[in-house]
């Protein structure tokens, strides 16, 4: 178990800079999730920590020790690959033993570690099987077992659930969470799936365009997104965004939306400019009386515990509102929407949340 720090690291592929002067610290025993869309640099960052990609500039400290110049096998980290990378010609036992034999561990110690990992992952009966004789979930467990036996300072997971079907993914996600509680190791987990990130991570690093947008606990990044990108990326369905002009009137400050709607804003913002208002669907409720804005329902999604209403405002912009699971609202109905003032986010023209600086 060790803390991991990246200090002003940079990485280029040819002339393209993919990581630029990035600093990040992962605490001992923490499960940190790197979350971002494809091409955001999350896997590159993980591979830089693993040693599979070189670090052009900056430092990597594992347990306080400079590790950026060490070979991957000497960094004392273990990686679980997206495609498991189980050697097909070796049995499960041999797959797990391979790394330990390479470092010359005594036979008894190897046997002890393999049996221990097999017990933790409940795969004692699979040790003599080949990977081709295992299901996707079992292969995943073997890949994790191969990492566990190394007793590494940190576990690195590169989108480990993306090859599993939906049901198995949910089950394995829970198992991974339990595993983290059992082994209490530092873990870094790369994913593009926000549900995985929110459910697994102690903290989440949200990456976009090879830069960190925000680091925080799942609830922090959900409730107080620092940028419009984070606000839009986290949450399903995504946050509603509306462009507005902030005006000072005799009634106070008001947000003038493009469709002509005026929403009083009880928030302190410096200067008059074009801003964007963001609000999550669960903070947009249906009102019987005239409220902040109105629109026509285009699509109704009934999810059982709640109902999502995809509606069109007067100017043609979209709004997603949430109603109770027993809602009887139908397509084509004209509705009034109330926006929860306490849950409004305001972003400037650079996409920064002016309320959570």
């Amino acid at each position, binding site marked *: 178990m060790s803390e991991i720090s990246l200090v002003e690291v940079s990485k280029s592929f040819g002339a393209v800079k993919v990581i630029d002067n990035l600093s990040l610290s992962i605490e001992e025993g923490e499960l940190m999730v790197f979350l971002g869309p494809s091409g955001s640099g999350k896997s590159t960052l993980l591979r830089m920590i693993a040693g599979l990609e070189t670090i052009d500039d900056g430092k990597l400290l594992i347990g306080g020790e400079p590790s950026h110049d060490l070979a991957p096998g000497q960094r004392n980290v273990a990686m679980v690959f997206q495609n498991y990378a189980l050697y097909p010609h070796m049995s499960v036992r041999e797959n797990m033993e391979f*790394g330990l034999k390479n470092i010359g561990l005594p036979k008894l110690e190897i046997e002890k570690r393999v049996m221990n990992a097999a017990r933790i992952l409940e795969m004692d009966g699979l040790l003599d099987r080949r990977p081709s004789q295992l299901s996707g979930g079992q292969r995943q467990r073997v890949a994790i077992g191969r990492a566990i036996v190394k007793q590494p300072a940190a576990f690195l997971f590169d989108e480990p659930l993306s090859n599993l079907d939906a049901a198995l993914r949910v089950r394995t996600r829970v198992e991974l969470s339990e595993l983290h509680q059992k082994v209490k190791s530092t873990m870094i987990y790369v994913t593009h799936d926000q549900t995985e990130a929110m459910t697994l991570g102690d903290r989440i690093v949200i990456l976009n365009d090879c830069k960190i947008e925000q680091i925080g606990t799942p609830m922090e990044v959900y409730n107080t997104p620092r940028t419009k990108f984070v606000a839009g990326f986290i949450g399903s369905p995504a946050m509603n965004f509306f462009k507005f002009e902030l005006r000072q009137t005799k009634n106070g400050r008001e947000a003038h939306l493009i469709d002509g709607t005026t929403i009083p804003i009880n928030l302190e913002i410096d200067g008059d400019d074009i801003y964007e208002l963001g609000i999550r669907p669960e903070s947009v409720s249906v009102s019987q009386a005239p409220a902040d804005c109105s629109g026509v329902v285009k699509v109704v999604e009934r999810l059982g515990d709640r109902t999502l209403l995809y509606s069109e405002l007067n100017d043609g912009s979209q709004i997603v509102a949430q109603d109770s699971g027993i809602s009887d609202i139908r397509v084509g109905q004209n509705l009034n929407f109330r926006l929860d003032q306490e849950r409004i986010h305001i972003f400037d023209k650079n996409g920064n949340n002016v309320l959570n600086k």
Partner: protein
Amino acid sequence: MYFFNAQKVNLIAGAITILTVLIAIIWAFPIYWGIVSSLKPEDEVVRPYIELWPDTLTFQHYWFALTETQIGRWYWNSIVTSLGVTVLTVATSMFAGYAISQLNFPFRRALYWLILASFMVPTQVLIINHFVLVADMGLINTWAGIILPQLISPVVIIVYKQFFDQVPKDFREAAVMDNASELRILFKVYIPMNWGVTTALSIVTFIWAWNSFLWPFLAVTKTEMMTITVGITQVNDAFGVYYARQLSAAVLAGFPVALAYLLFQRRVTEAITLSAGIKG
């Protein structure tokens, strides 16, 4: 309409089958003719008309080849040199193929193109250089002298490279994370994952080495150091050529290769297919 099409397909398939059988007969006839002739008395062989089956069946030429010549020694020389060529060629080629496929080093691509370019140089062009070199090293009439110049086999390197290229890079990265050295990655991951191609290339290399004639013919002058392909040219005497006797020696020379082919037919076919697009 359907019936017509089915009939047409059957006719084409039948025609192709007949053509294939005809080609196979044309290809196999010299082998049949050689075997049959080696079982005839010498006077029957030189008769001016074609006889597809001997009037008198005799094994006297085989008895002669086995007892009156040094065929045992020639077999031994062929086995040693062919095994030597096979083991060394496959071993060096797997290292070279792995390096070119998986390692990063200066001029890697240049080396690859150089190996590819070597297909353009026929062995015959190099044979004088080889002879001078081997003679200078004092290796004429030795097994090493027969083996060394035959170790140049770009086709085996290229086939290995292509197969190693196809191994998903996750396996290599997993092994690197597992602290494996390059040698362990090669022997514990890449070779076991490519046993099929190693077996196929070994068999084909053995057959090439066993059948090779020109270089062993030049590198050896002493009868006792000859390989079987060279040795069978010695099965004659001062009174002229004995066709049946020579054919019996040739049949004996080809027997191990034919046996290897029968035993490992699938692998040999596979290897020939693998190298078909590459072999210069």
